[in-house]
C-alpha cells in the first residue's frame, strides 16, 4: 500500500495545475461566460491528455488509471475548467475522435432519480451525445437534437439546453457498460467537486490573511479561523474519499467500487457546497459580488451535485451496500 501520490502522480498533478493556472485564470473564465467552450482551449486540453488519459496506449491513449484521472479532474475542477470534460473523457473508448478532442461528446445520465427535465449541458458545442440508461448506453448525433436553449443558466460557465425529445440513437452497450461509465463519471465528478472545495478553501484562507477589519487580519479572529479549519477538514475528508474511489475503481480487489464512488460523491459534494458557502461568508460583502470568483464555485457545485446521482440517491445506495456487507469482511475495511 502506498496511498500517497506516486512521483509520477505528483508530476502529473503539478503539470495539470500549472496548465490550468496558466490557461484558466479568472479573466479567461469571464470571457467564456455563457459559452463555456472554446475550441482552442479544448484542443489544448486534449493535447494535455485530459480525454485519452485512461485510454490504452494501444488505442492511442496514455494508458493511465482512474487514480490518475481523479488527480487531473480535481485540478480541472479547482480552476473551473468548463466544457463536457467528463463525458468526452468517458467517450474516449467509445466514440472515435473523443480521445484526441476532435469529437466533443456530452451526455445524459438517465439512471438515477434525478432525470427530468432533460437538460443537456454544452449542447451547442457537442458533436455527439451519450445517453446512459440502466440497461443501455446509446449515442446520438447532437446536431439533430430538438432542443431549446436556456437563456440564463445557473452556472454562467455551463450553458444548458432543454431537450424536447430524445431519439433512440446508436447502441453502444448494455447494463455492464452503463454501470462502468456511470461509476467512472461519478468518480470524476467527485474529483471536480474536490477541486472546487479546494479552490474555495484556498480563496478564503488567502482573503482572511489579507483582509483587515478592527485593526487585524480577519483570519486572526477565532470565529473566522474555525470556519477555515472546518473547511480544511471537509476538504481533506473529500480528498481521501475521492482518491480512494480512484484507487478502488482501478483495483476492485481493494474494495467495492460502487461504494467508494458513492461515498466520494457524497462527501465531495458536501465539501464543495459547504466550502463555497463558507468562502462567501468569510468574504463578507465581497463574497456576494460577481467579481470574486467564489460564486462560480458555488454554482458549479450545485451543478455537479446533480450529475451521476444526487446525495439522497447515493446515501440510500450506500446503506444497502453496508447492509449487504454486514458480515464484516476484514480486508475491505
Amino acid at each position, binding site marked *: 500500500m502506498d496511498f500517497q501520490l506516486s512521483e509520477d502522480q505528483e508530476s502529473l498533478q503539478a503539470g495539470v495545475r500549472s496548465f490550468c493556472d496558466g490557461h484558466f485564470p479568472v479573466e479567461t473564465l469571464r470571457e467564456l461566460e455563457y459559452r463555456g467552450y472554446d475550441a482552442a482551449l479544448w484542443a489544448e486540453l486534449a493535447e494535455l491528455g485530459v480525454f485519452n488519459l485512461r485510454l490504452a496506449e494501444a488505442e492511442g491513449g496514455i494508458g493511465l488509471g482512474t487514480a490518475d484521472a481523479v488527480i487531473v479532474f480535481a485540478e480541472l475542477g479547482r480552476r473551473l475548467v468548463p466544457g463536457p470534460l467528463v463525458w468526452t473523457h468517458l467517450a474516449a473508448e467509445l466514440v472515435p475522435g473523443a480521445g484526441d478532442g476532435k469529437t466533443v461528446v456530452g451526455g445524459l445520465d438517465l439512471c438515477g432519480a434525478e432525470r427530468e427535465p432533460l437538460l443537456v449541458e454544452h449542447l451547442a458545442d457537442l458533436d455527439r451525445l451519450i445517453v446512459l440508461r440502466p440497461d443501455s448506453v446509446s449515442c446520438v448525433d447532437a446536431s439533430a437534437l430538438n432542443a431549446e436553449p436556456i437563456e440564463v443558466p*445557473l452556472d454562467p460557465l455551463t450553458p444548458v439546453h432543454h431537450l424536447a425529445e430524445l431519439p433512440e440513437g446508436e447502441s453502444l452497450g448494455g447494463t455492464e457498460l452503463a454501470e462502468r461509465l456511470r461509476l467512472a463519471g461519478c468518480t470524476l465528478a467527485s474529483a471536480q467537486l474536490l477541486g472546487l472545495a479546494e479552490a474555495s478553501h484556498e480563496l478564503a484562507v488567502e482573503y482572511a490573511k489579507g483582509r483587515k477589519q*478592527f485593526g487585524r487580519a480577519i483570519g486572526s479572529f477565532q470565529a473566522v479561523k474555525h470556519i477555515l479549519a472546518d473547511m480544511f477538514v471537509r476538504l481533506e475528508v473529500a480528498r481521501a474519499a475521492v482518491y480512494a474511489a480512484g484507487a478502488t475503481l482501478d483495483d476492485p480487489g481493494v474494495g467495492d467500487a460502487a461504494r467508494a464512488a458513492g461515498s466520494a460523491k457524497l462527501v465531495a459534494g458536501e465539501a464543495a457546497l459547504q466550502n463555497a458557502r463558507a468562502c*462567501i461568508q468569510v468574504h463578507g460583502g465581497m463574497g456576494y459580488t460577481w467579481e470574486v470568483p467564489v460564486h462560480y464555485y458555488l454554482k458549479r457545485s450545485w451543478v455537479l451535485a446533480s450529475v451521476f446521482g*444526487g446525495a439522497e440517491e447515493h446515501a440510500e445506495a450506500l446503506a444497502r451496500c453496508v447492509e449487504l456487507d454486514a458480515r464484516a469482511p476484514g480486508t475491505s475495511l
Partner: protein
Amino acid sequence: MDLRYSKADEEFRAELRAWLEKEVPAHGSPPAISDWAKRRSYDTGWQRKLYEAGYAGINWPAEYGGRDASLTEQLVYYEEIARARAPYIGVNFVGILHGGPTLIAEGTPEQKARHVPYILNGEQIWCQGFSEPGAGSDLAALQTRAEKRGDHYLVNGQKIWCSFAHAADYCELLVRTDPDAPKHRGISWLILPMDADGIEIRPLRTLAGEGEFSEVFLNDVKVPIENRVGEENDGWRVTNVTLRFERGTAFASEMIQLQQYVRDLIDLSKRVERNGAPAWKDPELRRKIGHFSAELDALWAMVKLSVCQSSKTGVPGLGGSAIKLFYSELYQRIAEFGIELLGRARLSREDVAGLPSQALLQRAMQSLSLTIAAGSSQIQRNIISERILGLPKEPRP
C-alpha cells in the same frame, strides 16, 4: 401572555386587506430588474398609493404624516402586505426605513421640511452611503473624507453597497470629518444630493447577476454644511439611530413570505418526482418541511415577543440579534432545500418544464447576503455574547 390581536387590530386588518385586494392587482407586475427608470416609477407609484390611503410610514409619527401604528398594528400590516403579495418596498427602502426616521429623530426643522414629507409620498428616493471597501463589519473604520471649506464640505472617497444609487435623489452619507479623533468620534452624517458634481456611480454586480447595489466614487463633491444631520463628529451616534431600524420589524414581511415559500415548496414537492413517486411521498422530505415550519412558527412568535417587549419598554429588545441570526440561517437552509427539490431543473435560471427554477434559484442566491448584510452572523454572535450575555470582550491587539 396573550396572542390575540385586539378588535381594533382586526378592524385595521380587514380594512387594509380590502384595500390591498383592490390595489395590488391594479398596480400590475413589477418591471424588469435592470430597468431602473421603470422600477423607480413602479415602486414610487405604489408608495404614493400607500400614502394616499394613509398606509405610508406605518411606524412614523403622525405629526410627520405617518400612521403611527401600534406595534401589533405593524405586525398586522406586515402580515397583510405579505399575504397580498403586495409590491416590495423597493427603491423606497432606504428613505422609509432609514433616512426618514433618522431625519425625524435628528434633523433640523429645515431638513425635515425639505425631505420628510417627500420621502413619505414617494417623491424623494434615498440611497445609503455607509460601507466602504475597507469598512464592512468594521463600519467605523470608514475613510471617506469631508473637509470643511467655508459653507460646504469637500468630500472625497469611495462608498460601496449603495442600494438603489441609480434611482436615488439623495444619499445618507457617512464621512470622516476628524481624521485625528478615535475612529467612532470623527464621523459625520451628511445629506448628499445625488445630482451634485463629482459623483460617479458604478453598478456592482451581485453573484445573482443583479445591479441593485453600486459603488459610488466621490471626487471633490461639495456638500453644504447645512446638510449635516446632527453635530459634526457625532455621526456615529446618529448612525446608530438608523442601524437600530435594521434590527426591528424590518424582516417581518420577509418572514411571512418565507412561510408562504414553505407552502409553495409543498406544492412543488407534489409535482416533482423522486424514485417514481411524488417527492411529497418521501417522509424525510415531509419531516424537513415540518421542521422548517416549526422553526418559522417559533421565529414569528419570537418577533411577537420582541415587539411586545419593545412596545412595553419603548426601546428595541436586545433579542433582535438573535432573531436576525436565526432568521438568516434558517432562510438559507430553506433556500438550499428548494434547490435540492428542483433536481436537474436547477441548471436553469428560467422556469423549465413547469418548475419554478427562476424564483427558487433567485431566492437561494439572494439568501447568501442575509448572513452578511446588516451585521454578519459572526458580528451578531459577538453582540449576543458581549452585550446580552456579558462575556468579556476580546483583548485588543
